[in-house]
């Protein structure tokens, strides 16, 4: 049987100050880790929730995002009646020409962000089937009216139902709030595409087309047709594919977060190592006594490793609790690909909690390894003589 765990727990409690400081360091690292991962998870889910698998996004060939895409109306007219596209009962085709532009808006509390103002036609609500007007109504054509994503509420000035927004060259009345089940449209303002074209003064053009595939239609065939038909000559992608590429930002954030966490962890590991070395040296006589009583060298090593592990796991739990209040907190985030702002919620998932505890455990084991080995290697006679 091993040296009892209560020996380690109580020893940690006796060295209250150094235990607390070491735990604080580890907790901080774990908290940062959880926050970054929650941000990445939130960002990923905002991006992933935005697309529908049966929607295509059609861009100029070579364009990687809507913001750098653009094409003429005759290209749009040529694709509009392709048979793979779903039709409504009244014969209307589920094709949504769109023109997202950027508008600077004032943050509440100072600063300005680029917000996507998406020029659309009313059919957009049918194509983007996750988007719903949850308050007010859809904008009326040609009235300089807008609906705003609910993710923007509370973050920007004059951005509320019934208020007047100033951006571009005009004044825009907020007549509705839209929701898209967590997706990135919740960080956008939607307006009549003709009003947006007029305001932009760059002629009649579209940046992108979203379309919904008819049930059972061959999406791949449609994508080939869009590319090969000389009158169309555009590039199509399913929305999940498109947003997967966009998620590159989230992946970069994740990598950055990992690097920061690892660097901080190295510091915390040295902290843990220092504490455990101090513990081993302060308890040399106890180690000698335990060994003299017949506990094997390995039992001593395990005991100190376990002590370090207990410390780091407790610290990890504290770190998770410190980070927990950000769960569900909504925030905005500049998207480096589209140069627009995305609103999303931090999401502390179960996986993140487990990863955070594992991370803490690794710090404890790595930090405790050398001190525990030292405790194990100590000759019994010398340990007993250290009184």
């Amino acid at each position: 049987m091993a040296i009892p765990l209560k020996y380690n727990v109580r020893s940690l409690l006796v060295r209250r100050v150094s235990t607390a400081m070491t735990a604080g360091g580890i907790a901080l690292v774990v908290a940062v880790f959880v926050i970054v991962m929650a941000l990445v998870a939130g960002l990923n889910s905002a991006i992933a929730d935005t697309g529908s698998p049966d929607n295509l996004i059609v861009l100029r060939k070579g364009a990687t995002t809507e913001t750098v895409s653009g094409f003429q109306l005759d290209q749009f007219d040529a694709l509009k009646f392709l048979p793979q596209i779903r039709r409504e009962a009244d014969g209307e085709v589920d094709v949504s020409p769109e023109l997202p532009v950027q508008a600077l808006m004032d943050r509440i509390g100072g600063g300005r962000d680029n917000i996507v103002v998406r020029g659309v036609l009313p059919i957009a609500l049918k194509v983007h089937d996750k988007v719903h007007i949850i308050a007010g109504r859809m904008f009326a054509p040609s009235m300089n009216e807008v609906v705003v994503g609910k993710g923007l509420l509370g973050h920007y000035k004059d951005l509320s139902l019934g208020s007047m927004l100033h951006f571009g060259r005009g004044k825009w009345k907020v007549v509705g709030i839209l929701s898209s089940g967590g997706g990135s449209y919740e960080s956008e303002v939607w307006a009549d595409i003709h009003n947006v074209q007029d305001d932009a003064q760059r002629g009649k053009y579209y940046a992108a087309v979203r379309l919904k595939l008819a049930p059972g239609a061959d999406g791949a065939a449609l994508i080939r047709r869009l590319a090969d038909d000389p009158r169309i000559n555009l590039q199509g992608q399913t929305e999940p594919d498109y947003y997967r590429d966009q998620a590159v930002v989230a992946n970069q954030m994740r990598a950055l977060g990992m690097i920061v966490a690892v660097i901080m962890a190295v510091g915390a590991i040295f902290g843990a190592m220092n504490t455990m070395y101090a513990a081993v040296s302060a308890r040399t006589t106890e180690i000698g006594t335990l060994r003299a009583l017949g506990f094997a060298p390995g039992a001593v090593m395990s005991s100190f490793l376990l002590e370090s592990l207990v410390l780091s796991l407790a610290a990890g739990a504290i770190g998770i609790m410190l980070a927990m209040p950000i769960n569900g907190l909504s925030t905005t985030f500049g998207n480096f690909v589209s140069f627009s702002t995305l609103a999303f919620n931090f999401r502390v998932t179960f996986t993140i909690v487990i990863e955070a505890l594992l991370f803490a455990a690794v710090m404890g084991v790595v930090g405790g390894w050398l001190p525990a080995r030292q405790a194990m290697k100590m000759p019994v006679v010398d340990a007993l003589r250290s009184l």
Partner: protein
Amino acid sequence: MDEKYAIDLEHVVRIYKRDEFEVRALDDVTIQIPAGRFVAIMGPSGSGKTTMLNLIAGIDHATTGRVAVGGEEITGMKERDLASWRARHIGLVFQFYNLIPVLTAFENVELPLLLTRLSKAERRSHVETALRVVNLADRMDHYPRQLSGGQEQRVAIARAIVADPTIIVADEPTGDLDAKSAEEILGLLVDLNRQFHKTIVMVTHDPRAERYVDTVYRLDKGLLVGTEPGRRGAPAEAAATSA
């Protein structure tokens, strides 16, 4: 090696190397101690008493010579085996008690039993018995800092006997105690020797100790310089031989 001796040291030398200096802590010591004896090792500071005790207890290795304890030669044992051998055969008592400060009296006494196959309930009853022997059953849940020195040493003795070892080895067990507590501890050791027939080897500076023991071995500068009967009135044949 002779089975009838509890402790059998033959030409034992222990040399410590410190930098370029060599210290002959024990120099060709041969001692046979029959089972069931209570013996004292005496001598000036630095004469090698602790060294000898550590060799008997299997927590140190002889540089040359042979050490057999309880009929078992321990000279060449590996550290792992030696650890479990100690757990089974040796009860240790130290000058400064060496109780684990974060464990209660009960938990301290229980430690050696964690190395046995005893169940939790069996461990509990053994610990309670050991604490009753040292007359501290009512202090079971006290931490070492809540006990007097004499009481701490009694807890340490309970810990030394709880696993029913063959031999009890005590290094200046009264060295840090007042006269009254010292007498109590010595009396307790005598009882363990008489009632439970434990072989006890005790290092001591305390001249009073001579009254309690069968034999006194005198060490000086690592050499065994004398073997005398104690004043306990041991029978003549009990005096151990020195080579």
